[in-house]
């Protein structure tokens, strides 16, 4: 990341793309759907290239920064489409995941992180997970989630708070220092 920011190193940027694209593309597909995911990720990657100098390793990891930018661009797109009606994108199965035969160290780490996060999410009470996912992948505010689920705002706030605390606890081994 430093080489991208300081030297505008295209090769380093290409490696950054190779390393994180499966994570960021999965996120994009989940938020905006397959049809818009490519454009959303391309837009995010261009922004990452242009804003690389803004990255501050003291504030967070590269992964977290890339996810924030990609998620923001995806949610922008989602809002633009809201006039046509909000939609939840179903998660298609059988997509071309990181192939096991291409078991590079990075691919393996991705796989392990994915399994750990899915397990952590699955361990949450259903209502906590539902609220967190609506906020994270759907870009909904707590008021919007409360309205969608027909629950008091305070209930949603509590569910998200408890869910997030539990998630942080479970993901602690994966958190970058």
């Amino acid at each position, binding site marked *: 990341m430093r080489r991208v920011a300081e030297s505008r190193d295209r*090769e380093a940027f290409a490696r950054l793309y190779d390393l994180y694209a499966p994570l960021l593309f999965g996120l994009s597909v989940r938020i905006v759907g397959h049809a818009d995911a*490519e454009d959303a990720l391309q837009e995010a990657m*261009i922004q990452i290239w242009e804003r690389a100098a803004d990255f501050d390793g003291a504030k*967070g990891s590269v992964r977290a920064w*890339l996810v924030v930018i990609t998620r923001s661009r995806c949610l922008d797109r989602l809002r633009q489409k809201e006039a046509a009606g909000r939609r939840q994108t179903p998660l298609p199965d059988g997509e071309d995941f990181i192939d096991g035969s291409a078991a590079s160290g990075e691919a393996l780490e991705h796989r392990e992180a*994915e399994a*750990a*996060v*899915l397990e952590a999410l699955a361990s949450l009470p259903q209502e906590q997970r539902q609220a967190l996912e609506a906020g994270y992948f759907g*870009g909904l505010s707590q008021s919007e989630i409360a309205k969608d689920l027909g629950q008091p705002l305070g209930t949603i706030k509590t569910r998200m708070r408890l869910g997030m605390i539990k998630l942080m606890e479970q993901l602690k081994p994966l958190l970058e220092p």
Partner: protein
Amino acid sequence: MEHEKFDPRSMDLEPSRAFDEASGLMAYGAGLRVPPAHLRSKVMAAIRPASELPLGASPGGALWRKAAAAAAILAAAVALSIYARPEGASLAAVEGGALIGGKPAGVGAALPMGAVIEVPPDGRAVVRIGRRAGFELSRGARAILERTAANAIELRLDSGWALSAVKTGTPYRISTPHGAARAVGTDFIVKASAERTYACICRGRLVLTGPFPDQTVAADHHADFIIEPGQAPKPAGRWSSLDGHRDEAIGALRGRLGLRP
């Protein structure tokens, strides 16, 4: 860091690095998905030093994106040549001529990752990829062989026909403007045109992906589908044809590639 509405304060939590990192990890909850290989090329072609931004354009803004898109075709060739990795793809047979990177190529010529390969309407070219896969291009095919971030082989077929033979377990797929067909150990053909993509699984299993829920199709003897822009695959119906992928054509291709039937 920007956090849209997913903010610790809204959950009565203290802002913390742990929250930010856990938020970043939550992206894994969407599942890992390998983007199409051509997206990497597009991204690499689109990025420019800040000093080259058009006047009045903000980074990532609409004007910049349009300018980048206009330059993409030319720049892609440069980017691909920079980031190409050595691969074992080469021409195993040529009939009627073939162009690689716009230059005539004969049997034995290497097909670098990212290079454009073209055959004339009445020509054909067989490309061997290592010992596990290969394809035959025909009917004026224009295609680019790429490698995805996950090390899978992707043939981006812009037009024409591509008959493929793939050993089981080889990560290989063909993408067209309308979707992609991923091999799960199979013989299959993809025919691409501006109007539609035709895909036939001759033997084995194939996963069709695109702007629609994935579809896994299996057949012992030819099952074909049509994908039209923005639509899910449907049975080929009147477009159904064995032209270009009869058993003897598949047998001949496997023979040329040295793959067992």
